[in-house]
Structure formats: structure tokens, C-alpha cells
């Protein structure tokens, strides 16, 4: 009798690689506002500060230019990320005892299913648009110089 194999075939590439993978799927489309609130003098603020850095990158911001990102620095408060969705719902991440990776994973778990799917253009319409684009790209032939 043999023991069935369980587990991964390869070793993990490390925490930074995992964060990078999560960061690739971060999308702010269904989000209206993100507020980072923390007291920098509290001990467990590394997570929220790292998240602030990661979510302020240009690539993430470009996913939704209308999304407002705020930082609120207050005295004696626990580090929280409050997110307002387009639907009106609010999410609150208490990051005191969380890891950067865990925050990103939870964020993606909630936000990624809410991203509106881009409608794929199929059939005749696609052909027409394509044809129109083709003529546009080509443009009218310039009148020959006399």
C-alpha cells in the first residue's frame, strides 16, 4: 500500500513573490474611496504602511482614476483600512494583527468578483467596427500636390 502524494511539488518562492502575485490582480474599479487610518506611534503599523505603499503605485491607481485614496493620521487609534464600494457597501480591514499578504488576499477575495466584466464584441458588430477602424486608421487618401 502506498501513501498518496499530498503537497506541492515545488517550494514556495517566498512572501515577496506571493505579494507580487496578489498585487497583479488588485483592481480598484468597483471602489469609490479608500481611507487608511492609523497612528504611526502604535507598534503594529507596518502592515498598513506597506499596504499604503503598494496601493499607491501608479499601476494600481490607473485601474480606477476616480477612486479617492486618503490617509488619516489620528492619535491612539488602531490601524484600519476602510473601503467604500460603488454599491454603497463599506469594508473595514483591521490590520493590527494581519500580514500584508493576508490583507491583499482578503481584498482580492472580496473585490475581484465585483469587477464589471468587459463585454466582448462578437459577430457582425465586431466586423463592422473592425472595418470602420480599418478605414479610420487608413484615413482618406491625401490629395496629391500640384
Amino acid at each position: 500500500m502506498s501513501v498518496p502524494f499530498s503537497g506541492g511539488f515545488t517550494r514556495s518562492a517566498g512572501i515577496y513573490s506571493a505579494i507580487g502575485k496578489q498585487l497583479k490582480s488588485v483592481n480598484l474599479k468597483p471602489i469609490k474611496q479608500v481611507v487608511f487610518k492609523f497612528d504611526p506611534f502604535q507598534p503594529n503599523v507596518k502592515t498598513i504602511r506597506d499596504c499604503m505603499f503598494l496601493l499607491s503605485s501608479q499601476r494600481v491607481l490607473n485601474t480606477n482614476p476616480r477612486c479617492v485614496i486618503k490617509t488619516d493620521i489620528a492619535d491612539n487609534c488602531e490601524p484600519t483600512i476602510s473601503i467604500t464600494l460603488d454599491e454603497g457597501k463599506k469594508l473595514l480591514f483591521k490590520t493590527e494583527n494581519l500580514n500584508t499578504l493576508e490583507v491583499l488576499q482578503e481584498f482580492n477575495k472580496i473585490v475581484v468578483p465585483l469587477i464589471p466584466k468587459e463585454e466582448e464584441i462578437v459577430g457582425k458588430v465586431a466586423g463592422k467596427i473592425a472595418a470602420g477602424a480599418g478605414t479610420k486608421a487608413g484615413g482618406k487618401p491625401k490629395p496629391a500636390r500640384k
Partner: protein
Amino acid sequence: MAAIESTTRLIQFQSLLKPWLPTATAIRWRTRKPNVQRPIPDHYVKARYKAALEPIYPDPLVGMPWYQVCGNLLAKKEEEEVGKYEELLAKQFHTRFADAQLIAVLHENSTKAHEIIKIKQMLHGHNMQMVFGSRKIATMALANTEFEPVLRLHVGRTAYLCSKDLQISKLLKFTKKMTSFVLLGGIVQGRLLTRNELQWCSTLPDINMLRAELCSILTSSTSQLSQSLTYQQQQLARSLEQHVKQNGEMSCDGES
């Protein structure tokens, strides 16, 4: 005689202690160039001799306890050597801190180099300077100094804005313009303050005015005390004077 013996012995030893030098032998070839990278395997007998003469070293892990043999256990971190360049950076870091009267601690969000250049241009000529450094360099520079409490705020990406003048409102104005930096706190004349305290500090009037106010408050109580102590005597003196005046008038009237 002894000297001669010792020298002869030395010469004998020298012959033994000659360092081994790899010798280059010239190979004559005409038809086929010898393959240096993948040479022809040795003749069987030669190969056997070579294999027999290969040294066998003892396994270093034999006889060691399991906690040293196991490779999965994390080995103790060896103390890292501090590089000269790091030392230089730390020194620079500390001098900038020591020169400044006012230091703002900022959280750095992801920025591009051209944004930082713009900020530097904005600060140029205002006796202000941005100071960047990793946690390692900051600890090297600031540990065991008066600025040690700042290291508490140095978590993740942190930058500092050092100002040689004590103009808090001006510094706050500049930090507002830096969109990718978030003000966390600051050091005002060697005292660590939170962001709110910094803002309160900016509303305070000039320190010389405050000193004058304090002086007036301190002197007012002493003057009041002296006044209250001498009040009775002064009144007595005044009434006596009055009495003398009245008596003088009366005597004048009597004479007339």
C-alpha cells in the same frame, strides 16, 4: 658550528617547503589539435591509479549532533560586516539630523524620481533638505543618540525633511504640497511630536514673545506681593503726613 648546522637544516627544509607550481607542458601536435575542454579519457591503467590516489576526506557531519546536521533548521545569522559606504551614509544621515532644528518624519508612498526632483527643486533655497535612508542606515546613524525615538516611526518606507530654521508653518505648507508623502510626526528642537502637536506648534507665536509674556507673569506676582506687604506701612505714612499737615494748619491758625 651550531650556526652552520642550523643553516644546513634550513636549506634541507626549504627543499621540502617548496611551493607547488602548476607546470605548463607544451604538447606537439600536427594533425589533431588536443581538446582542452573535453580531453580524451585517460588510459585504463592510468585512470585506475588516479582514482586510487584521490584523497578521501572524512564527512564533516559525522559525529555532529542532530541539531547541527539538520539542514532545514535555520542557521544562526552571522553578524553582517558594516561596509565603508554604509558608514559614510550613516555619518551623513546623522550630520543632517544634527544640523537641523526641525525634522519632519514622512511616510513615503510609491514615487517616481522626477517627482522627488521636483520636491528638491521646491525646497531649494529654503534651508530644507530631504533625507532618505533605509532602516539599517537610520539605526546605524541614530542609535544611541538624542534622535533614537525617531526609529520607532521608521517602519517601511520613511523619509525625513530636515529644516535648519525653526519655521513650522512653512514646513507644514511644503509637506502639504508633497502629495506622495504623508506627514507622521516631527522633531522640534530635540522633542518628538505627533502630527497634531506639530500643527498646534505652528499656531504658536514667536518664542521671544512667549518668553516676554512669561517674564511679565513671573514679575507680576512678586510686585503684587511687595505691594501687599508694604500697603499698611504706606497707608500709615500717608495718614501721618496728612495728620502733620492738619496740625501745621491748626498751629498756623492759632498764631494768627
